[in-house]
């Protein structure tokens, strides 16, 4: 049955193209690619866009990471957090709560008991305020880990922040599970009034390390 449907649909497509051939097309790619902005401008743009989505942003140097991470978690009263197995343990050196290291056999309802999650990221896009998470990277973790808990704290190296969407997309590994995040979960379905936090994390905290 399925094989027949496959042949049928494909031969219909071929028939359609024979009946109505389309114009020969070369894709013009005159839009902006390969943009580079100096660190300060890229940082300013990225922060502006993150704040616009009501993301909380902190900047620090690499050596201050542990202090800032602990401070942010503390401010949210996060007593029990989850981390991907490959997260740099130094980032949590100043945190005094319970840390659960994630693994594939922890069921989602158990992640629901966490107060928050701390991860790294693969790349970001300054112009849109988008963070790209690669679930196959050991410091970013399973997709469920960054989805189920209500607080996501993401540590981002400024050097990984790209200017625009093409620059960021070019740095992805396409067949890995990828999640693009622009601010906390939000809906505008009721009279187009924006409400933060529906099914994903209600709070997104970003720590940008300006010298990393």
């Amino acid at each position, binding site marked *: 049955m*399925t094989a027949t*449907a496959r042949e049928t*649909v*494909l031969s*219909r*497509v*071929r*028939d*359609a193209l024979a*009946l109505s051939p*389309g114009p*020969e*097309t*070369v894709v*013009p790619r*005159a*839009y*902006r*690619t390969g943009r580079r902005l100096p660190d300060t401008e890229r940082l300013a743009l990225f922060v502006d*866009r993150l704040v*616009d*989505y009501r993301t909380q942003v902190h900047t620090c140097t690499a050596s201050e990471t542990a202090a800032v991470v602990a401070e942010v978690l503390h401010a949210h009263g996060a007593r029990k957090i989850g981390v991907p197995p490959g997260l740099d343990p130094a980032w949590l050196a100043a945190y005094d709560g319970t840390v659960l290291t994630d693994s594939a056999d922890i069921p*989602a*309802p158990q992640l629901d008991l966490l107060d928050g999650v701390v991860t790294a990221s693969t790349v970001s*896009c300054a*112009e*849109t*305020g*988008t963070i790209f998470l690669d*679930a*196959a990277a050991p410091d970013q973790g*399973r*997709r*469920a880990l960054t*989805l189920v808990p209500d607080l996501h704290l993401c540590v981002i190296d400024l050097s990984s922040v790209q200017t625009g969407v093409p620059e960021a*997309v*070019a740095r*992805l590994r*396409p*067949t*890995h*599970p*990828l*999640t*693009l995040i*622009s*601010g*906390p*979960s*939000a*809906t*505008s*379905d*009721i*009279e187009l009034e924006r*409400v933060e*936090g*529906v*099914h*994903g994390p209600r709070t997104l905290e970003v720590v940008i390390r300006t010298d990393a």
Partner: protein
Amino acid sequence: MNSPADRAPNSTFVGMPTVPPRSPYGAGNLRGERAFPKAAHDELANEQLRRNLGRATHSIRAKRLAVTGELPDWEQLRDAGSAIKTDTMNRLPELLEQLERKVIEHGGTVHWARDGIEANEIVTRLVKGTGSDEVLKVKSMATQEIGLNEYLESQGITAYETDLAELIVQLAHDRPSHILVPAIHRNRDEIRDIFLQEIPGVDPGLDAVPAQLAAAARAYLREKFMTAKVAVSGANFGIAETGTLSVVESEGNGRMCLTVPETLITVMGIEKVLPRFQDLEVFLQLLPRSSTGERMNPYTSLWTGVTPGDGPQDFHLVLLDNGRTAALADAIGRAALNCIRCSACLNVCPVYERTGGHAYGSTYPGPIGAVLTPQLAGMHGAKDDPNSSLPYASSLCGACFDACPVKIDIPSLLVELRHQHTEQSGTTAEKLAMKAAATVMQRPKLFTAAQKAAGLGRLLAGRDGTISHLPPPFRGWSDSRDTPAPPRQSFRSWFASAEGAEAMRAAAAEGVRHPDDGIQETP
């Protein structure tokens, strides 16, 4: 001559190409029960609907203009997007086969469905195979189009919509009225009442505040997300080069469905394939900005087959035809298949703004729906089929063309469809256009003048681009000269130009000499 050896390798001799069939009549949600003017007439009586719609569409419009205006290369992105889609349609067979190969390579299973009925059967069989009698749904136009939820229900399977707007529509036993915000026709008080009535155990003190209502939906669905075994989604894009699928959303309900259940079934129209992973750099800029007026939507998920230890371990992709190949066989339908369902054309359409989505009777409302619906499902039985009234549900003002991120020239397609319909039915396009106009517009006289100047002018001009005969009241004028048809590009700019204004003045002045030719405006 036609011995197998004479044929090119890998090609099947199929003889004369035949026109592919449309979506089966009477199945799915591609046809309303009443013609557009009749349905629109009733919707117009709903003051609440018009207020909600007016506010909503104006607000998205303003946001969209602001965020598209901030990109200096917006026009170049539109050119690229349009060309990528055109190129995709030209290479559809090879791209679909490549997508299939890549999905299988990464551990997924691919199914093909000739129409919605077959797709529904495939999904049902897969769900039953898991032993589950419920599924979570990610908002999807394709599954709405084929009436999947209704079919699953008839098979004893409960489908839970997880997008807030779709949930509202589902709980209210209603139909979506907008591509992007399906419950745009409901206000907060109505939504509170729906929740109080339909969500088991909901707090009876629930206030009609969007944040509280969203929280109620969160609480209701959380347990389902944590325990559901199967989810069904659509796809915004399917990348042939890598086998990667993509869902673009805001709430995180999509991420939940795509990540937590053991089995994921994705139903994707065959036109949603894109050649290269790199093409996402174009569409991830065009879609959110055109759609919600945001620089980027909160969440986009990209996945390829299955990933051991992460997400569903059983992934099925259902590739759906359901009239798409019929559309592809026609120059109009082909252009309409380029649509990325951003809904920008709905939000700028003066006709949609007054009638709302239900008047179109199809899953696809608004300007693009008026083209796509007849292309997918046909305009059978020319006079009685509600779909044959859709090409007239437009003022042809051109705003939709200007808004479309992939540059679909919707007004021209509507004019061509009217041609096709009049040739088929022997009725006059003018009469039908007037009827739709008189129903919908507050000032039908002005509307009909615009129709004549732009749309009907083009319609009557035929394919040689010259009008030799204008309808009344402009007949006297056109009898004595040939009028150049308004240019294909933009009716609005022609109408606003000195040339357009002059032509209108002259036409109106001469038209006055034929008072008997006045048009009947049907209320």
